[in-house]
């Protein structure tokens, strides 16, 4: 059992505030991912939870107890570092058993726990090697093993996969998910990679400049971004953003005019929006289609063929760059002129302040 509650957590270095009040509830066995661009404070937040950074203001509860003043080793957490931080002078066995040794766990029990973790992580053949004799993936697993052995209430991961190559990274993602299921533990995972966030998280926390921009399930954020920042950050390739003007404003739909003059009725509730207001229309690359009768005339500037899919980079009126995702079998080539159709149900609208106009119909998979 482990639940965490962050209440208005703040961190300042001198007069410089890096975490500007974070509120968050993390449920037992939840896999939570902190994601955001570099410098957004996600690692600092994790380190505050770990106890490695002092909490300037606010409260951190673990299982209902305030742990602000509890030392890192006594919070019942384990952390996997970006550089793995293995002890270079100890064997794999000693690395994994170090915490237990400091806690004066009897040798027999220590060995049993280390062996068990080594079995789970397939590290048994390497127990007597030193970190420098291991590959990157193996070191990563030792770092995880060191955390598992302590049977912590919460696992903390600080960009653990960023030092691995792409293939290994994909494989380790799956292993971590399997581990999460097997251990039934709460996990908090920091990454700047939104693909890691999308594929692994039960709950994503998007951070920017020390503030929480949005909290939700991956598809929640994908289909219902709360603001321009989240809309642009989640999803690859990025969401297309176009300047539009509100024409007809209603509670169920807002009709907007594109630069080219065409009008689209987007299912969104207008709220305080007035006709004539400048808005931003967001549409993901899969929301645009090639359609000879479509309203938007564009010139293809670049074709990226990924095999199953093809990405078209195109230029629309007003020097607007757009990305379109189409079938891999489509024959469209660079420098061709094509027409695009927009799926109004896939459109997002953002007001001047960058806040999303609520979409009345929730996506079926977005909880």
């Amino acid at each position: 059992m482990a639940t965490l509650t962050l209440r208005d957590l703040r961190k300042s270095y001198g007069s410089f505030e890096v975490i500007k009040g974070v509120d968050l509830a993390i449920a037992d066995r939840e896999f939570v991912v902190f994601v955001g661009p570099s410098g957004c404070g996600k690692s600092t937040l994790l380190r505050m939870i770990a106890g490695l950074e002092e909490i300037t203001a606010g409260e951190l509860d673990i299982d209902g107890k305030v742990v602000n003043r509890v030392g890192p080793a006594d919070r019942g957490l384990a952390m996997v570092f970006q550089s793995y931080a293995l002890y270079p002078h100890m064997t794999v066995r000693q690395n994994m058993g170090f915490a237990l040794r400091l806690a004066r766990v009897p040798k027999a029990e220590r060995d049993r726990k280390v062996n068990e973790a080594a079995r789970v992580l397939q590290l048994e053949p390497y127990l007597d090697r030193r970190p420098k004799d291991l590959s990157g993936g193996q070191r990563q697993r030792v770092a995880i093993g060191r955390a598992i052995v302590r049977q912590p209430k919460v696992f903390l991961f600080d960009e653990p996969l960023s030092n691995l190559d792409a293939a290994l990274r994909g494989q380790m993602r799956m292993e971590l998910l399997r581990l999460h299921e097997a251990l039934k533990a709460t996990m908090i995972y920091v990454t700047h990679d939104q693909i890691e966030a999308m594929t692994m998280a039960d709950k994503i926390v998007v951070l920017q400049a020390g503030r929480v921009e949005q909290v939700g399930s991956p598809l929640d954020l994908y289909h219902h971004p709360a603001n321009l920042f989240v809309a642009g950050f989640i999803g690859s390739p990025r969401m297309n953003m176009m300047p539009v003007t509100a024409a007809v404003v209603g509670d169920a739909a807002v009709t907007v005019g594109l630069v080219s003059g065409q009008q689209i009725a987007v299912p969104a509730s207008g709220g305080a929006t007035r006709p004539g207001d400048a808005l931003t229309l967001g549409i993901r690359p899969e929301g645009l289609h090639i359609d000879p009768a479509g309203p938007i005339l564009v010139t293809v500037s670049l074709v990226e063929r990924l095999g199953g899919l093809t990405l078209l980079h195109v230029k629309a009126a007003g020097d607007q760059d757009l990305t379109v995702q189409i079938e891999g079998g489509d024959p469209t080539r660079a420098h061709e002129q094509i027409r695009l159709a927009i799926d109004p149900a896939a459109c997002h609208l953002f007001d001047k302040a960058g806040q999303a106009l609520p979409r009345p119909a929730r996506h079926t998979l977005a909880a």
Partner: protein
Amino acid sequence: MRASPLQRLFAAALGWTVALVLFFPIFWMVLTSFKSEGDAIAPRLLFSPTFESYRDVFARADYVAFALNSVVISVGGTVLALLFAIPAAYSMAFHPTDRTRGTLLWMLSTKMLPPVGVLVPIYLLFRSAGLLDTRTGLVAIYALMNLPIVVWMLFTFYKEVPNEILEAGRMDGARTLTEVWFLLLPLTLPGVASTGLLSLILCWNEAFWSLNLTSAGAAPLTAFIASFSSPEGLFFAKLSAASTMAVAPILVFGWFSQRQLVQGLTFGAVK
């Protein structure tokens, strides 16, 4: 980089020539130490080797006393310097404050203070404290003399310990003492060892304070060798034998530790 055979030959010839020229004085010293006095003053490569000079040097009972002084003073000065420097470097590396940088640079600048500038007061202080010509006095002087460099070197080595490893230790439940004992000490042992080594070399070879503050009782080998500058120095073979014995241990030390020495000496500014 690829090099043509001709280039390699040229580099080899030049490199070996330079190395042999630079090493020649040491080679010649060792060679002369095995000559008889008669052979020694006639520079020749061919001679019948003899241990005569070594026997003679050892026969001067005081050689052993000088050597013992050198050992005691160098080791003593080094240990004392390390005792002061380890806590200082530890706190500067892991708990830096705004003044850390300034303190470090100031320490370095104390090294620029020429010993001659303070020779007189030190001499008088030592005289009134009864420290002239004592090992204790030299141990204290050597420790102080090397303290800035020792702190600097240790600081560089401590700085190289990744912070994440210490944090991992803290997550695993290490307190200050267990952190130092289980993590820091094993991780920086090579660094501490090479720092000690450099301090040892500097103490062993130091020839300003030892010449000025000692006469007979506590004089180390540097002073012993200096006594050969008198006409007695014309006994080339004995001079060479004594010199060889004075230099050999530190030279071997130096050969083995050159890599770490560079790393520490350059304060990490050269990698």
